[in-house]
């Protein structure tokens, strides 16, 4: 276990997420928090990908995740920290509800900590795996 203070904040933050303590999770963030959940080429296909701002934005992201994803496995193996960053490294197996396809991938979360609160969160994940799982099958013409 890391002795870094930001690693410990990151562990508490995800502890609330894993315990479904969403209010406590939100209370650990700054008012102007920004989540970048793999914002990029898959953002139009994966409902919870994109950039989400503020408490309402984060709650909307989590609602999109609940609506689209059925996590079979979500495990974080290590929490680390340095400078103003905290890191969470793990893996997940998820069933995409819209397509019923399942994918397994590693993930990396990087949190920016300001004055003891989470001011930013970035998620790095195999977006091609998710676009495959969430993209609808080609329809018949």
């Amino acid at each position: 276990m890391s002795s870094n203070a930001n690693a410990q904040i990151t562990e508490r933050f995800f502890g609330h997420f894993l315990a479904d303590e969403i209010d406590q999770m939100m209370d650990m963030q700054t008012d102007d928090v920004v989540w970048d959940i793999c914002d990029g080429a898959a953002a139009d296909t994966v409902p919870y990908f994109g950039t989400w701002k503020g408490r309402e934005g984060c709650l909307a992201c989590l609602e999109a995740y609940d609506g689209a994803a059925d996590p079979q496995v979500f495990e974080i193996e290590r929490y680390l920290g340095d400078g103003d960053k905290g890191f969470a490294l793990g893996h997940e197996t998820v069933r995409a509800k819209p397509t019923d396809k399942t994918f397994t991938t590693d993930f990396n979360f990087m949190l920016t900590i300001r004055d003891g609160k989470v001011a930013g969160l970035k998620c790095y994940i195999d977006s091609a795996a998710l676009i495959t799982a969430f993209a609808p099958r080609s329809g018949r013409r």
Partner: protein
Amino acid sequence: MSGQNKRQADVNRQVVEDFFRLFLEGDMAGVMACQTDDFVWDIASGAASGTVPWFFVCQGADAGNALVEAYVQAADPVVFEVDEYYADGNKVFALGREKVVSKTTGKTFETKLFYACTMREGKIAKLDLACDTAAAQAAFTHD
């Protein structure tokens, strides 16, 4: 973090900074010298591995050089920057971004880069890259 652990993290961070500096200078012998003999690169292996020529797992110097050659053959990097480094325990994280033109399709993709390096005795034993694999896959897929 104890003083000894902090010092080791600082050493590890410097090794990874040197690794990327040498890579950008084209000094592949220097790059290899930053790593253990049995190093493993996992360069965004996963769903896009069959499409993007350098997205695979390799071990050792010969395989590493082959991966770099696959990159050189397929990619025309317009931007490649690694400019943030963080270290804790046996891990170093290196953050950057790249913009690449696919030589096979002419399409361009941009992605953030997240390298996670696992260190052993002051050398890189494993390097994992996470990036926007969907963007790379799209750039290497013919319309």
